[in-house]
């Protein structure tokens, strides 16, 4: 019994088909609990008023935007090393979801920034590096769409994901150097002296768990769709030959 068994598309379809309803239900449950708790059952913060509640969308979306790219990097490496098609398809499936999380992070940030910073957009290091991350997602998706042969596309996008990760990381530190920020520092770390108070922190944890589960659900659904579309294409090709 090893994890590579799930690289077999048939085994993957069985397992994911069994898991999918459970993950979906769990993600709906945690998201509803987390968001309702966060939006309606927490007090307004003294300096920010009720605007503070946007963190229940902003923070989990931003975290998942980075996690999705990391997941794509890992699955791309697995594809390049072990040539498991499910892995390449999972990377393809995750990209548009990651892009949407990035956009949600940027948009909710802008909506919060307007009343708080007095501007929709500032060339702050975190904002800028997120915009760059969105561009990396766009390029990655565009390359998948442009190349016709699926194996060639998987290879090229995997190489792009690896090189892109290095440069995205570089950009993140380059923009720190380039401009001072408005964005607040990390306030959820386990080792920081000053963190967000528990009243906000607990529902936020639930929301983060909900977003992770939502991501898993969407990736499973999209990967299953990709595998099915491959099967359909294989069937069509066989029909033509016969």
């Amino acid at each position: 019994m090893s994890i590579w068994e799930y690289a077999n598309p048939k085994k993957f379809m069985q397992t994911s088909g069994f898991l999918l309803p459970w993950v979906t239900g769990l993600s709906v449950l945690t998201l509803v609990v987390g968001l309702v708790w966060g939006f309606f059952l927490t007090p307004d913060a003294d300096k920010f008023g009720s605007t503070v509640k946007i963190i229940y969308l902003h923070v989990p979306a931003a975290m998942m935007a980075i996690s999705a790219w990391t997941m794509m990097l890992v699955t791309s490496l697995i594809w390049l090393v072990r040539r498991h098609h499910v892995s390449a398809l999972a990377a393809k499936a995750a990209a548009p979801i990651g892009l949407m999380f990035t956009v949600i992070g940027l948009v909710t940030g802008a909506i919060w920034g307007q009343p708080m910073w007095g501007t929709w957009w500032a060339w702050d290091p975190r904002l800028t590096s997120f915009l760059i991350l969105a561009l990396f997602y766009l390029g990655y998706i565009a390359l998948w769409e442009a190349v016709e042969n699926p194996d060639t596309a998987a290879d090229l996008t995997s190489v792009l994901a690896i090189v892109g990760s290095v440069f995205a990381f570089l950009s993140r530190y380059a923009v720190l150097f380039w401009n001072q920020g408005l964005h607040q520092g990390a306030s959820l770390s386990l080792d920081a002296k000053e963190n967000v108070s528990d009243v906000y922190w607990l529902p936020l944890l639930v929301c983060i768990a909900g977003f992770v589960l939502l991501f898993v659900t969407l990736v499973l659904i999209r990967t299953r769709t990709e595998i099915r579309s491959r099967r359909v294409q294989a069937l069509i090709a066989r029909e033509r030959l016969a």
Partner: protein
Amino acid sequence: MIALMIRDMRLAVRAGGGFGLGLAFFLLVAVIVPLGVGPEPATLAKIAPGILWVGALLSCLLSLDRIFALDFEDGSMDLLATSPLPMEGAVAVKAMAHWLVTGLPLVSAAPVLGVLLNLPLPGYLWLVVSLALGTPALSVIGAFGAALTVGLKRGGLLMSLLVLPLYMPTLIFGAEVVKRGAAGLAVATPLAFLAAITAGSLALLPFAAAAAIRVNLR
């Protein structure tokens, strides 16, 4: 390798369009910007470092698809792939040839355009130094982008979408060197980062680009 380099440079210079075009585009950017933002010397002096770097970057981008596209179409890439020279070496040589015919003229033309944009006097040295250090990175990163899209019919626009985000760290540090140099501040830190990016790209990206070429030749 030297023969390949000379061949590539000859083709670039003689085939027309590629060699002078980047330089002309660079000049046009430097002319267009004052027309757009107005001729006040103070404003121009302030934005000159950024404009010159963005202009150099865009002119570099303009000629990237020539690195591999023609050789890919007429089958020279297949010959290179079967030759004893490893593909990594061929990619590095082609990127260097691209730099010699595109990057180097940009570096030498930049001071003249600096005059047009009213760049402050201490900035000229750092403009030349930063472009000389940074443009090789632009060529190598561009060669990687060109290698990814070489198999596509109309890959030019897609290549820009892929390459421009990769250019961002180079642009940030390069423009920062000139900005600090023009203001008379210490430039060592961004200059060191810029050199590090160039050295790292030169050392590692030919491998990624060669992998992409091999996939496209399959």
